[in-house]
């Protein structure tokens, strides 16, 4: 890891540890914008770590931004950090400046199209993350990439099962300027990558919580960690978490190298599967307390359950990989899998 990345991750770790606690996440889920946390991150240059300096960012790589996102997700930071990262990448790729403040992206679901003609937008995007409160919405339209002021669109608020804003945005009649080009699947691909990274971070979080909990909790006169059944269960969980982290790190590295190939599909499919299995094991390890609102585990597991379905769940990406494998043919399976 280079010096810049170490600095980014150390700074992020410190900020989240100091500020991003259970109470802050709880308030955010109830609708209170965590302005202090956002401001601290923005002032440290972390919210636009991947944006080139000449476009208004910190000048890091996309890998810097994604590893920052993984750190943020170990603390389930309740902010549009993934969306701001993706918006920044899209704008920089299109050759446009990146505005300050929290950003989001649209559309985020397959089949939704936002049309652009005569300087006006039309169409509706559903489940847009953090649309209300965003300083700008970066939209992949039929004619290219546009920056839209949220004041000019109709926003119907809704939430994910994790209490994260997922709004319906009606663009009809909003004026916009095309700032550059964007390929139709770019948001989808970056979204799948970002959610894989976020899940990998949250999975490391629930493993750490579970390991701590079974060492603290006593039953039958000894800590849960002394029971072989519990040890075996947490070891199985560690296997899922390690696989998830490896798959998502591999996708980060491949993206940074400019040739993600199938790595993002592999990450979303593998991490999504790990999320379901590990969340189940984490709850089992915690017993009844983990099912309460009072205890923080649900802040992680509700996000895992939601994120795994966004930007294509496991079936979508598995089928994508499967079709590529079938097309390559049985005798090329090894070359495909070893990327050689």
């Amino acid at each position, binding site marked *: 890891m280079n010096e810049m990345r170490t600095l980014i991750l150390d700074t992020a770790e410190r900020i989240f540890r100091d500020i991003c606690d259970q109470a802050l996440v709880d308030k955010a889920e109830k609708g209170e914008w965590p302005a202090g946390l956002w401001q601290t991150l923005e002032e440290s240059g972390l919210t636009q770590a991947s944006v080139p300096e000449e476009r208004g960012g910190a000048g890091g790589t996309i890998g810097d931004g994604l590893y920052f996102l993984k750190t943020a997700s170990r603390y389930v930071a309740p902010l549009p950090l993934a969306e701001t990262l993706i918006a920044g990448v899209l704008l920089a790729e299109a050759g446009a400046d990146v505005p300050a403040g929290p950003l989001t992206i649209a559309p985020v679901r397959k089949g939704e199209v936002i049309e652009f003609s005569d300087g006006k937008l039309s169409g509706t995007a559903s489940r847009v993350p953090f649309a209300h409160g965003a300083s700008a919405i970066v939209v992949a339209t039929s004619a290219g990439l546009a920056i839209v002021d949220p004041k000019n669109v109709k926003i119907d608020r809704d939430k994910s099962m994790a209490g994260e804003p997922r709004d319906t945005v009606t663009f009809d009649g909003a004026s916009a300027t095309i700032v550059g080009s964007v390929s139709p699947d770019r948001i989808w691909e970056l979204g799948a990558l970002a959610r894989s990274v976020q899940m990998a971070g949250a999975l490391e979080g629930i493993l750490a919580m579970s390991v701590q909990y079974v060492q603290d909790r006593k039953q039958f006169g000894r800590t849960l960690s002394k029971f072989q059944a519990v040890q075996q269960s947490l070891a199985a969980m560690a296997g899922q978490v390690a696989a998830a982290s490896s798959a998502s790190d591999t996708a980060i590295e491949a993206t940074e190298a400019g040739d993600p190939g*199938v790595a993002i599909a592999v990450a979303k499919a593998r991490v999504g599967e790990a999320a379901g299995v590990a969340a189940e094991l984490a709850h089992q390890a915690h017993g009844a307390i983990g099912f309460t609102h009072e205890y923080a585990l649900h802040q992680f597991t509700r996000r895992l359950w939601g994120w795994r379905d966004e930007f294509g769940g496991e079936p979508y990406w598995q089928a994508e990989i*499967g079709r590529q494998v079938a097309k390559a043919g*049985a005798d090329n399976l090894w070359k495909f899998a070893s990327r050689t």
Partner: protein
Amino acid sequence: MTTALTYPPRTLGPEQEAMRAEVRAFLQKDYAAGGFGRGQEAMARYDVEFSRRWGQAGFIGITWPKQYGGRGLTFLDRYVVTEEALAAGAPVGAHWVADRQSGPLLLKYGTEEQRQRFLPKIIAGEAFFCIGMSEPDSGSDLASVRMSATRVDGGWKLNGTKLWTSLAHICHYMIALVRTSPVNPENRHEGMSQMIVDLKAPGVEVRPVYNLAGEHHFNQEVFTDYFVPDENVVGEIGAGWEQVMSELAYERSGPERILSTFQTLVELVRQVGDDPSEVEARAIGRLTAHLMTLRGMSVSVAGMLADGKMPVTEAALVKDVGTNYCKEVPEMARLICPPEDGAGNSKYEKMLKTATLIAPSLTIQGGTREILRGMIARGLGLR
């Protein structure tokens, strides 16, 4: 709060890809010439002639120093050589143990005379070794081994039985873990030693143990007043436990732990064809995503070994996740392409059958799932 085990992605360099090209060229030529039959669980399948050709082509002991005939290359180079052989389904069983762990053990603990006596022959594919650890009453609990070695003039006399010894019937040597002094209840790991046993010498009887498929893969060896000369003791008398633990670090995370049923996946892809249904595409995609992830983890561990680290827990985790994956391959294959549906591809049916039959062994040999998860739990700080 970092309890998670990490597997930093490791990119193989141009040297490794050159090595891959060399191995692939050899395998393609050898296969085309009718040199070997493809199969699964390749390290249990053997072909003495193939091993000799493999050794003479320079693919055994490639990490070992040049003075013994090795190539002085890294663990990553070795990784590429072994994964290519396994992916091709080549029968590497005869030389497997000598290449993976007996040679490295002699390099680390053996005498100079032992290295000169054995390493060139291993490298040439002419000396095969097997692992003498398990006994009838010592499986997972390796510290309970009972085979005794008593001091005699010029060496040691062995009495006892070894069991589950893969391919002992074709091997020349075994490295046996024996008790050189009685059990100390305070420290069960004391008093054990490792010795090179010539399986062709008098005093040892190798008996077949047929597996559930009726195949002769492992064996039982009964030692009766078997003489081991002093020059065949490996390392220190009494340090056997520590030496065995270091040997096992090489055993656990290699490509053999993720590719044992790979040919079933290959034939499943062939069976499904180039226009899969949604359900077929998902199943193949899922199995491929798991394989690619596991390979990344396994290469990462090879990189740690190349860096001189001892990633014991990381390796145990790869073996746990990898062997469970290998068992899932035939189970998922039979659900999407049922073999009784008259699919007609006899190769698919054959691979599915052998994968199903070898599956139970995968999470038992080389450390059971329960032992591995115990190790992982220790790594997490739970024990």
